[in-house]
């Protein structure tokens, strides 16, 4: 078989089981693709020897008839996941040289299912960013370009390396994490599928924390079927994460029937933003028509507090980040600044954190410190948590009225140019998450599905939002949308 790296997870699994290929062949194809794709800067720590060892072990298990669900499938892992003995820096200088002594639960679940790790993927520093431009490794680059224009575009963020790698067929699929849209926005910018499950589905243990009440891991894949298959493996109760849900995980792939007759799909009027490009608007209408044609009924709904989601997020996420990132003190792991004569422990903290954190992380830690400081806690942090209650209530109300899923644009634009936002104020960048951040605040599952291309040929995605714990039904609706959209375009290879 040729171009093995271009296969999706389900296709490769079936080929392996039939004996049409081997995990070593699949892995070698991906490793070659990675070597040839330095220009994308997607893989930032490569583990080819480990990958080939794992592939040989997988082939032995397949031959012995003892293959677990994802046996032999080569993946990329976002740098936010701690991987035993392999650099795990969260895209930050402050974790330079850190070699975890343990494996995150999610990546362990994937290893237990027989997967192969090709290496670690680029990301915004501590997952704070929407363009991968805050990474210590430099920008990841979108494999897609505008027509014949060779301007480098962002793959989105924070899971930009994951998105670029899957889109460019450097791996069969990748892990991502999503605190405000960090799986769904890059998926939309690169023409792939990305799902953030219900808060509590995936263990957060061993995933470098950004905002603990919002962070969730999820798969980034070439199809909805692949997402369903990989999510099933990633999820599961973990006693090491007190917020991990002790619920059975269904076989999500087995729930893909494509039949959505009678489902009620909500279209929230508040997601029609001023200044939204006409092409996004048109795409949303087309997606609505596709679901209607597939037998769903379309219902206009209202989520009245939508407008307040981003401001609430920019209180809650920095507050949690300022607390979580207090652990980077130059004492236990990672970078420590060189100290001057007479410098004490406070200077060590201050210099270490000034050198180790990039500007966006420093900004968010300080905003978080401010909103939690004496005298402002009620005015900012508690107010934001109350607004969060109202945002969640908006969703509860529409689900109580019988809505099965909500269809929205995934992003307010297609991928933008790297460097385009350098001089913009931080709020402009934050607006990228305007359609996705509500879902994190409400703890719901959300999936981005590629549905069309803009007139410059860039992919555009739509988001479906589901009921809590009902990822199976959500994936099935996404499967129907994917089938109707028939998105098969791939970026032309220039790298």
């Amino acid at each position, binding site marked *: 078989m040729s171009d093995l790296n271009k296969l999706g997870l389900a296709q490769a699994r079936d080929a392996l089981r039939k004996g049409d290929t081997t995990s070593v062949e699949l892995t070698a194809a991906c490793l070659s693709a990675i070597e040839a794709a330095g220009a994308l800067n997607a893989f930032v720590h490569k583990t080819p020897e480990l990958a080939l060892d794992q592939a040989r072990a997988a082939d032995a298990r397949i031959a012995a008839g003892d293959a677990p669900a994802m046996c032999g499938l080569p993946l990329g892992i976002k740098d936010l996941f701690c991987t035993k003995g392999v650099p795990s820096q969260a895209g930050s200088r402050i974790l330079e040289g850190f070699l975890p002594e343990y494996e995150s639960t999610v990546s362990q679940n994937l290893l237990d299912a027989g997967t192969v790790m090709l290496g670690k993927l680029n990301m915004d520093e501590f997952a704070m960013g929407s363009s991968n431009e805050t990474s210590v490794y430099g920008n990841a680059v979108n494999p897609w370009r505008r027509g014949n224009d060779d301007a480098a575009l962002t793959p989105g963020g924070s899971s930009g390396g994951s998105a670029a790698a899957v889109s460019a067929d450097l791996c069969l699929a990748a892990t991502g994490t999503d605190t405000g849209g960090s799986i769904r926005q890059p998926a939309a910018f690169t023409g792939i599928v990305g799902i953030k499950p219900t808060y509590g589905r995936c263990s957060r243990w061993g995933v470098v924390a950004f905002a603990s009440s919002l962070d969730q891991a999820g798969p980034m894949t070439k199809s909805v079927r692949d997402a369903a298959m990989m999510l099933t493996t990633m999820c599961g109760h973990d006693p090491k994460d007190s917020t991990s849900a*002790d619920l059975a995980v269904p076989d999500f792939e087995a729930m893909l029937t494509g039949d959505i007759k009678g489902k009620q799909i909500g279209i929230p009027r508040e997601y029609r933003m001023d200044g939204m490009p006409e092409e996004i608007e048109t795409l949303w209408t087309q997606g609505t028509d596709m679901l209607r044609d597939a037998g769903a009924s379309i219902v206009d709904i209202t989520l009245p507090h939508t407008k307040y989601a981003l401001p609430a997020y920019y209180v809650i996420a920095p507050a949690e980040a300022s607390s979580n990132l207090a652990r980077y003190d130059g004492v236990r792991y990672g970078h420590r600044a060189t100290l001057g004569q007479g410098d004490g422990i406070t200077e060590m903290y201050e210099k270490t954190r000034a050198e180790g954190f990039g500007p966006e992380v420093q900004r968010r830690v300080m905003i978080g410190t*401010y909103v939690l400081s004496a005298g402002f806690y009620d005015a900012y942090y508690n107010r934001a948590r109350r607004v969060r209650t109202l945002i969640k209530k908006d969703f509860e109300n529409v689900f109580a009225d019988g809505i099965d899923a909500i269809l929205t644009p995934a992003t307010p634009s297609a991928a933008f140019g790297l460097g385009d936002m350098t001089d913009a104020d931080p*709020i402009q960048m934050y607006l990228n998450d305007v359609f996705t951040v509500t879902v994190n605040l409400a703890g719901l599952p959300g999936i981005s599905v590629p549905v069309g291309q803009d007139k410059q040929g860039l992919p555009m995605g739509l988001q479906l939002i589901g009921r809590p714990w009902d990822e199976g039904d959500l994936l099935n609706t996404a499967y129907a949308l994917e089938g109707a959209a028939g998105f098969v375009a791939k970026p032309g290879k220039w790298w």
Partner: protein
Amino acid sequence: MSIDETTAARVAKLARIKVEDAALPALVTDFNRILGFIEQLNEVDIDGVEPMTSVTPQRLKRRDDVVTDGNQQDKILSNAPDAREGFFAVPKVME
């Protein structure tokens, strides 16, 4: 509500991040843009609304209060920038 350079310097101190005086004006500008954006929350009627503590209704699990882990001193110190004689080493804290 807007903040000045004195407040920004105090926040940087609380966050244990060294910010040079020359960098304070730009930081103040960024802070005030972000805080201005957050101010929108004041439009929302939050009377009688509880602050969210858990996004999914779940009770934290209990377990027996027993030692289940330990004896990993080497592993715990393996990533330390400075470890000596089985301890993390830091600059002198007290004279």
